[in-house]
């Protein structure tokens, strides 16, 4: 998760400048071609849609928990649903409407949580 300073910079600067700054600060390198950077606050807002089914506690009662995932895995799986390479139509629909920034933001938010059960 980016530091507060980095987050402020991300909001204030252009995307390319932001990515350059992240790299300059020694943050985890982003995959080539990946354009969006996640915002935890946006992810938290968007997550209200997810937690109707996926429990914030991380409990597994038939629908997989999604808290505490590595961001890259989260993004990859969401994109697979987005491109209908994974089958569930609910998730295809949910992922299909999300921008790259929104997916990245959800990844940041859920990645920042730890299972509480």
């Amino acid at each position: 998760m980016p530091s507060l300073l980095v987050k402020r910079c991300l909001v204030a600067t252009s995307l390319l400048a932001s990515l350059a700054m992240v790299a300059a600060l020694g943050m985890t390198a982003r995959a080539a071609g990946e354009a969006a950077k996640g915002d935890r606050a946006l992810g938290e807002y968007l997550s209200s849609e997810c937690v109707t089914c996926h429990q914030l506690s991380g409990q597994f009662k038939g629908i997989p928990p999604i808290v505490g995932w590595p961001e890259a895995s989260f993004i990859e799986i969401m994109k697979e649903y987005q491109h209908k390479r994974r089958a569930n139509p609910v998730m295809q629909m949910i992922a299909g409407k999300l921008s790259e920034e929104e997916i990245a933001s959800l990844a940041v938010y859920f990645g920042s949580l730890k299972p509480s059960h």
Partner: protein
Amino acid sequence: MSTSRRQFIGGIGAIAAASSLPRPAIAQAKPRLVVVGGGPGGATVAKYVARDSQGAISVTLVEPLKQFVTCFHSNLYLGDFRPYDSITHSYDGLKKYGVNLVHEAAAAINREAKTVRLASGVTLPYDRLVVAPGIDIKFDSVPGYSEAASEIMPHAWKPGPQTQLLKKQLDALSDGDLIVMIAPPNPYRCPPGPYERVSMMAHVLKAKGHTKSKIVILDPKPNFSKQGLFVEGWEKHYPGMVEWQDPKMHGGIKGVDPKTMTVRTDLAEYKAKLVNVIPAQMAGKIARDAGLTNDSGFCPINAENMKSSSDANIYVLGDASIAGDMPKSAFSANSQAKVAALMIRGELTGAKTFPARYTNTCWSLIETDDTVKVGGRYEPKDGKIAAVETFISKTGEPADLRKQTQVENMGWYAGIISDIFA
């Protein structure tokens, strides 16, 4: 529609620019939200506003019942797929977010004074009010039916004792007995619900070896939700047991007589051992009395935020609202509540708000490990909540997919209950 940070609406700036400053910021320390009705819409909005405002908004939830029995999955209780206790939930989990629970009936809303009067006479002032009373039954929409008659011919379309009465009657049947269901006209709570209920009744009869029993559905509609999927399932699992009649077949539902347990249509008279009458429906009384409904009996809302079309201080959620293409379901109410919670925080504390987006999915169990689903996502468009994408299970799906859909169904229930009450 996607939302970028650049599209965020600055709540504080928007409020400052608005013609009517929220009075609470001036008049008292904390703005007050009162929520009438503790179902999936009301309880969710109470939790989300209290939790996310972190004490900046006083949230009071007015709900007479101390435990909430879900209408969703009550069919699974009828079908012996889950016990009654498992669809019964306490409100206590909301206390940790600072929600004030008032277990009393709300008697009246004074829109001019911005107060809610409780049955005890206590008056609750509000800055914003959420009205989420669910449905009331239009008993007189079926000739011969009444609230008293529902003790003999249950509707079981409001959860609780009616659900238990229907279960008791179902379990008491003998082989060869006839069940008649009168299905409701549109719009009504849970569009696939009557047909899932028929499936669960058939499951119970089949499990008991009641091969001579029959279920007749008398429907005022020419078609129904997930019709192809249900009909396929009935033919597969319960051959010869379920008979669905549309208006062209029965010619009109003429009435019921609880004393003789008969149901008359234009075509025939049925003498049944169990009659499940699901009448037409309307928004809960308090919404009607407050003048929030139109001629349909339900409440028009602003698709952008779930506000009442007739009162900018009131939001209407769930089954009581006219939510465009969204069905009346727990999932819908929960989704609407999250939109409303954000907008309320934006109005009362200047929190950032975002364009509304809504989702819904409804799962229906037809037989053990055979579950289907329908769903969609929705956005405000041309003044109503419009479907922008929908999906539905397909007929002929493989058994393992249907089984997985049932696992998902149970997982969703656990998830939404946690989301509402925990």
